[in-house]
């Protein structure tokens, strides 16, 4: 023959390295010894290398010929007679077993329907509203309502507070966000997250679902209160007011969540809230500005810079645990213990 053996050709057609066939490891069983001409035996190549047999090209050609013949045979093979196929299908249909479990049967029917991504996402997000119990709804509403007496300047004056309702909302917003997120993710420290993360939803759906409900409810409460404030307090600029509470809701929600990957949610929430209030007072009261000045661009701009920094830090904390995000969301620390 005289051609140089083509190792790649044989590997390609076999689908594996022939060296694996010669020394496949312990436990391999060949049913029969290999016959063959003596001149085509191996020269004792070590296993794991690619020792191309001298007849390797011939073997590759033989295998290719088999494949080609089979394809040609398949192409020329007559299709089954349609009437025969119908009879066969009818006979087989009679053999279809009754389902062992009607529950499992119905379940499979539901899952096979495969709704679109939007429906699937909504299906994952919707049930998580059950996690937010009545105390959450009532306490959040009560907190927002607590400042309503400030809508009356006389009441504010009688309390000795130089505080508008709009400014009150700005103070309350971070508290609402922190408490809401810590409450929504309390399962991280109780072990419930371990069970939830083995259900039919992704960690992203779990996180976004809960953040959505907390943020949506807080936005509803604060949005309504802002409209009321803007209507009754002429000095309030609605746009700045909304930005003033929307920003802490966004930043603190993400920050509390990222800290909850390292410490229990209540600890993370308290730390985030304390830091926020510290920054806020440094930018207002420490500069002899009232809390209400937080809606002023001179305060809001540096506050926004802190918020951006906070988001970057939170993203970094999440990215740091990314390969083990599920483990962290389940409330397990680096040593696999509950934190």
């Amino acid at each position: 023959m005289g051609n140089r053996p083509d190792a790649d050709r044989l590997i390609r057609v076999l689908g594996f390295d022939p060296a694996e066939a010669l020394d496949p490891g312990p436990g391999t069983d060949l049913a029969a010894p290999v016959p063959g001409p003596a001149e085509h035996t191996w020269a004792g190549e070590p296993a794991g290398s690619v020792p191309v047999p001298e007849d390797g090209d011939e073997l590759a050609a033989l295998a290719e010929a088999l494949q080609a013949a089979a394809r040609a045979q398949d192409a020329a093979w007559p299709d089954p007679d349609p009437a025969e196929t119908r009879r066969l299908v009818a006979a087989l249909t009679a053999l279809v077993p009754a389902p062992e479990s009607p529950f499992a049967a119905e379940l499979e029917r539901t899952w096979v329907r495969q709704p679109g991504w939007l429906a699937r996402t909504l299906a994952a997000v919707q049930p998580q509203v059950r996690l937010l119990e009545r105390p959450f709804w009532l306490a959040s509403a009560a907190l927002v309502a607590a400042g309503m007496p400030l809508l009356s300047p006389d009441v504010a004056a009688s309390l000795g507070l130089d505080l508008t309702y709009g400014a009150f909302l700005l103070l309350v917003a971070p508290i609402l966000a922190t408490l809401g997120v810590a409450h929504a993710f309390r399962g991280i420290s109780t072990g419930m997250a371990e069970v939830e993360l083995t259900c039919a939803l992704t960690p992203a759906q779990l996180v976004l679902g809960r953040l959505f409900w907390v943020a949506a409810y807080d936005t509803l409460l604060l949005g309504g209160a802002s409209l009321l404030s803007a209507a009754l307090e002429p000095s309030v600029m609605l746009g700045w007011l909304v930005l003033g509470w929307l920003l802490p809701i966004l930043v603190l929600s993400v920050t509390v969540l990222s800290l909850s990957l390292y410490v229990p949610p209540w600890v993370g929430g308290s730390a985030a809230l304390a830091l926020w209030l510290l920054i806020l007072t440094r930018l207002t009261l420490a500069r002899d500005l009232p809390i209400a000045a937080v809606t002023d661009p001179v305060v809001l701009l540096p506050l926004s810079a802190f918020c951006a920094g906070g988001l970057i830090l939170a993203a970094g904390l999440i990215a740091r645990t990314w390969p083990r995000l599920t483990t962290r969301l389940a409330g397990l620390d680096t040593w696999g213990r509950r934190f």
Partner: protein
Amino acid sequence: MLELADVTVRLGGVTVLDSVRGRLGPGVTLLTGPSGAGKTTLLRTLAGLIPPSAGEVRWWGQSITAQLKAYHRRLGYLPQRPATYPEMTVSGFLDYLSALKALPPALAARRRDELLEALGLSARAHSALRELSEGQRRLVGIVQALLGDPEVLLLDEPLESLDGDSRARVLQLCHRPGRVTLLATHRLELVPPGLVAHWSLDAGRLAVES
């Protein structure tokens, strides 16, 4: 068929599971070992909660990480410490988890009631979870694991704090044709003999006993 292909798990620099290799077929397999042997870590790894540092867990030949959502649809898991939301009622808690497991509501409610009946908890369906004993909360945890009629059932210490009658009912519910069940316990005396297979874990290494 669940397969552990040379699974190693290192946590905090410590090798908790060391090249664990084994296959779990249909039937109940008991997992025993002293405290700290790695039983809980093994179950969490099989549940997809802890990614292996080396090797992989395969379900019918494919890594579970490549098909995690489909795998979780067919998984029932009970953690070592039965976790609940104490303020929820028993039925409310199970309905919440049914929704997370994407089970059709009417069907899930029927299944919930059947399982509560089978484990003698029907009368407590509307009780708050905080009012239940530890054993009853563990039974509720087992119910949630069985809600979706799972094909893979991983139970970590399911028999603790249960009386003999409840233990028998739990073991009976675990058996289902085709289901792979791994039941971890450090108390061999609680388990009746005659299970399909017995694995024992010691210092992160697995021995297939039978």
